[in-house]
């Protein structure tokens, strides 16, 4: 939706149709059409609200636009309650089963992000995010605490091999075997 159809904004409204015929005659991809479905501006008067509710298929009591000036920048598009597709009843006889949506049901502003093949937020999560973070810190804290206690601690025996230092021949060092010296 963003950055679309700058051409039609540059020309007067009368020649909007000319662009679509021109592109159709040249055999290019279909003319842009999604500007026709752009939501209207934020409804100020009650009359505008009634018209907007009717446009989107909602009762005036149910219609609620996004707050004016919100980051969603939806204009008069309604603020629907988000029910992700995967959370809807799989056994109900939806009109459009692959969308789990009835005919004419108004769509959420970002419904395509919450499709079954896209993101689904967790439902009935077994643990809260805070519990998971707390568990992580408890585990890591236990490991670190054990390391701090046991490392270089003379009171805790180490599982080690009974070998002394590796004997590399260096300039000043003398290493001996266990045989008597040659006389």
């Amino acid at each position: 939706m963003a950055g679309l159809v700058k051409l039609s904004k540059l020309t007067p409204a009368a020649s909007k149709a000319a662009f679509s015929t021109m592109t159709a005659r040249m055999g290019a991809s279909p003319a842009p059409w999604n500007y026709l479905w752009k939501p209207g501006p934020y409804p100020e008067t009650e009359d505008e609200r009634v018209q907007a509710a009717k446009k989107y298929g909602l009762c005036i009591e149910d219609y609620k636009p996004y707050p004016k000036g919100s980051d969603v920048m939806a204009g008069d598009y309604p603020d629907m309650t988000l029910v992700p597709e995967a959370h809807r009843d799989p056994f109900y006889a939806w009109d459009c089963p692959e969308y789990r949506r009835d005919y004419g049901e108004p769509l959420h502003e970002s419904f395509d992000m919450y499709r079954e093949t896209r993101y689904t937020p967790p439902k009935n999560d077994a643990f809260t995010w805070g519990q998971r973070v707390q568990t992580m810190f408890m585990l890591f804290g236990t490991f670190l605490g054990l390391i701090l206690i046991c490392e270089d601690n003379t009171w805790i025996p180490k599982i080690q091999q009974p070998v002394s230092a590796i004997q590399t021949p260096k300039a000043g060092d003398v290493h001996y075997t266990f045989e008597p010296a040659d006389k």
Partner: protein
Amino acid sequence: MGATWTREFWEGPEVTPKQYSKPTFDPLLGFPEGRKPRVMTVSAEEMEAVQLTPFEKNYCAEAHIAAKVCQWKYPWFLNGFNCHHERHAVDECLHQDYIIRMKEWERERRLRIRQKKIDAANAAEDMDE
């Protein structure tokens, strides 16, 4: 496998040397006939020419060099089937080196026990006096 741990548990941590620690006592203490020092049989230039890794530049360098030279006699895909004698010689040499290090560890441990007894006897003498 937990023999060292068990000994440390019963005999105490101050008597048990740490793994890979250097000996603290005089190397010739307790050897009336002296000790034969270990000798390097190859020169540093030879080791560098054959491109030994730092781990291989120890008292077993001669065996390592023989194994490496043998390895270059054959193409790489036959390396696994040849030079068994040279590779076994390297393992034997490293095994003897490990045994020497184990003996050093045990010697350190026994000298520490001995030192502990000496100190206890001296302390008892001081108390008696």
